[in-house]
């Protein structure tokens, strides 16, 4: 028996999922595109990787990928983080597609927690891995209730929450998974990207798909859709700003990771988007700690 299973298991359908399942997922994706920001339930399959580790994104990617696609997978903006490596390896194995770390070369980019710094184009699809798709979940734990709130467009509790933040802290104390309104209708969780990335969702030429495997939901932002971060007139939305440039490539206006250098408070800030940072360094840009500093303080305009 075990030998039969072992040999049988080496023969997967293209992109792992059977064609019926892919069709079911594509139907959910089409519905999601037709109703921007609306969470479409789908019969999420058990994937050979843990729930909560990107199974939603993996199923969306598996449903849309074709043999000619070029896949990029990032986690925390980087291509070489372990889970990104594992997911890229999965698609290489079960779909034998070309992979890349270059944002500009990719036709499908699966991501966890970041939107690439390099602007996307109309020929690309960005697939987000989503842990908790429901933006109202931490205000109302019941799905039966939150679905009603969405149906009625009753987002009062969310505005109260944001207001209470301002009352307590003087500002909206949400720094990632910052809620947005899509196409003037549904409030949507953009997945746990930093709010720094929120403006990139708005009027984006690329199709953006969101897959939550464990929670069994798919949602979408079609190309060139209005995506507005929630705020108040007197407390407008403000993305994070970093005071120093990337220590390796000198970029400013990009999201930076803090790296602890020693146990005496020494630290540096480097691009979270490794492809963007490598590209700038290859083009000769140098940051403070990159060996041969030619320049620094350059804008994110490469």
């Amino acid at each position, binding site marked *: 028996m075990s030998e039969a299973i072992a040999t049988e298991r080496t023969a997967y359908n293209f992109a792992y999922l059977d064609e019926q399942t892919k069709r079911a997922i594509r139907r959910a994706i089409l519905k999601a595109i037709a109703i921007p920001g609306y969470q479409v339930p789908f019969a999420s399959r058990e994937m050979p990787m843990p729930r909560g580790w990107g199974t939603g994104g993996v199923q969306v990617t598996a449903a849309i990928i074709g043999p000619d696609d070029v896949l990029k997978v990032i986690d*925390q903006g980087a291509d070489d983080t372990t889970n990104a490596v594992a997911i890229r390896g999965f698609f290489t194995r079960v779909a034998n597609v070309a992979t890349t770390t270059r944002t500009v070369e990719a036709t499908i980019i699966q991501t966890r927690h970041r939107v690439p710094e390099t602007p996307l184009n109309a020929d690309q699809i960005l697939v987000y891995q989503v842990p908790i798709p429901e933006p109202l979940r931490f205000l109302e734990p019941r799905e039966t209730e939150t679905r009603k709130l969405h149906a009625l467009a009753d987002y009062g509790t969310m505005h109260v929450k944001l207001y209470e933040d301002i009352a307590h802290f003087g500002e909206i104390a949400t720094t990632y998974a910052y809620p947005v309104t899509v196409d003037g209708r549904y409030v949507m969780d953009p997945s746990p990207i930093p709010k720094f990335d929120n403006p990139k969702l708005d009027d984006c030429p690329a199709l953006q798909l969101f897959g939550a495997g464990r929670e069994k939901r798919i949602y979408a932002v079609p190309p060139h859709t209005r995506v507005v971060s929630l705020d108040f007139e007197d407390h407008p939305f403000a993305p994070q700003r970093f005071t120093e440039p990337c220590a390796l490539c000198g970029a400013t206006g990009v999201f930076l990771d803090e790296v602890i250098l020693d146990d005496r408070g020494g630290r540096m800030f480097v691009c979270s988007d490794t492809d963007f940072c490598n590209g700038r360094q290859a083009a000769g840009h140098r940051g403070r700690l990159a060996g041969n500093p030619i320049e620094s303080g350059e804008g994110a305009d490469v």
Partner: protein
Amino acid sequence: MYVAVKGGEAAIRNAHRLMAHERRGDPEVPEVSAAQIDGQLALAVDRVMTEGSLYDRGLAALAIKQARGDLVEAIFLVRAFRATLPRLGATEPLDTSNMAIRRRVSATFKDLPGGQILGPTFDYTHRLIDGALDGFAPPEPATAAPREEAVPRVTDLLGEEGLIEPSPRDDGSEPGDLTREPLAFPIGRDLRLQALARGDEGFLLALGYSTQRGFARSHPFAGEIRMGEVEVEIFVEELGFAVTLGTITVTECQMVNQFKGAGDAPPQFTRGYGLTFGHCERKAMAMALVDRALRAAELGEDVSAPAQDEEFVIMHSDNVEATGFVEHLKLPHYVDFQSELDLLRRLRAEWDAAALKEAAQ
């Protein structure tokens, strides 16, 4: 000088190599085979089949070996494999009243048609660790002539008097399948039972226990627990009748619960139902308790306890989902953490400035 963390691929490969090495254990000690696990750790295999939702002893045993005895990991392996299997058809409902019984006990009647059959059980053993177990050759088991006629279910015996609610009528509707269609709450009892059958034994055990301690108390009696082999039949269109595919071992628990009557329902005993692959008695009993607790709304009872809350129970009973999300906290969260650090530093600076100002006044 900062060097970007490269080489994730090599690190993963090496970690998996090390894991395979540790899985083998001391090479001086003979390797355990899947067949040995199947035969000698049979209850672990039963649990993996039940919560893995796939009746395949050999595959479950192999999964346990691959998972180094981590049963939740083994269940996950089986589930991921199950997800790739084609659906060739649906079987006829199992007829557990025609079970070839190996164990059958009732806590509600001292004696009853078919009798009490203890079968292979830990019950009444003294839980003393047996230092002489290694190398012990057990004596041949005692045998008796098999019973020819079917053993009626206790709930069917009580049902004749109308003292216990009857089984729901078969209204011809297809039972749901939560692995093929998304759940939308409230769900029917069919989906609830499917979810409970796949649910984590420990979670259901704790919830069932909570109902006994007063959180949705419903005065349960173990009406009957039976374990044995049942035939699996499939209806063949071309033949016009059902044919037997084979037999499987199942454990069934019918929990009988007091009920004072409410609304249109007269005072009568109500039921909770548990069914597992193999011999998973604890799981079947816990499942029956939770099934009954989840029927609170249907029976017009107050819904006040966790075990009665359908969305809470069903959304959190699946250990493959639960372990994935809990363990995903191991994945990098640098970006979100960085965002929080930034916010906290700003809030902290404001707080310090305010404190300083206050001290100066």
